[in-house]
């Protein structure tokens, strides 16, 4: 899931790359949530979680390149129920709503960036 915009001159500044990485991470999170919800009764299944926000924030504030941050998938270590499954339906449902909203916001932010250039081009 590397950025394929290496040749693009206009859109490789910090905020564009950060937004691209965030969009990748949020889309991955949506898929992982769907996975977790479909496995809610599977014995021994540990919920998967996607992490990228902290790494991204750290990369940006340390002045490093946000392009090097990739979203990671890890298994949740929360306590399991009797059948070894630890998927929490409430948490997954709310996380779904939250991720959907964040995805919309990040898309809006990307769109606004393109829009500013478009405004100047249209004259």
């Amino acid at each position, binding site marked *: 899931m590397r950025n394929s915009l290496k040749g693009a001159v206009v859109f490789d500044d910090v905020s564009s790359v950060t937004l691209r990485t965030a969009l990748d991470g949020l889309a991955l999170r949506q898929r992982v949530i769907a996975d977790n919800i479909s496995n809610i009764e599977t014995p021994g299944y540990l919920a998967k979680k996607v992490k990228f926000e902290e790494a991204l924030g750290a990369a940006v504030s340390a002045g490093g390149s946000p392009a090097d941050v990739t979203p990671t998938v890890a298994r949740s270590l929360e306590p399991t129920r009797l059948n070894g499954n630890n998927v929490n339906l409430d948490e997954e449902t709310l996380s779904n709503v939250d991720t959907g909203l964040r995805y919309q*916001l990040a898309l809006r932010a990307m769109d606004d960036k393109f829009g500013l250039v478009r405004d100047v081009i249209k004259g």
Partner: protein
Amino acid sequence: MSLFNAIGIAGTGVTVYRKWLDAVSDNLSNINDAAPTSGEAFKAKYVIAQEASDGNGAQVGGIVEGSGQGRLVYEPTHPLADADGYVRYPDIDMGSQMGQLIMAQRGYQANLSVVDRAKDSYQAAIQLGRNS
């Protein structure tokens, strides 16, 4: 979830009410557990709800067990009856447990509708100034 805070806070409420529902359903399913008088009756579970330590929403402070005294019922034909014919049953009032069940369910639904409304509001905020 500091970005969409209302959803995170409602999430803590949902967790508390879900635990309450679990405790009440546990109590109700064990309401007729027989125990010998030498032992303890099934202890009802009570969920302690309190404000979250970081100020965002609610948390379960702990689950307390009720008394194991129960009530003694005269049933000489029961296999667990003691020499005097008594068996120990838990002292759980079904009526009050059903009342709690309804309250827990209402609380759960109320928190979910907060999430719904908050989602609509946030979507409207994301669409702000969008028409150009």
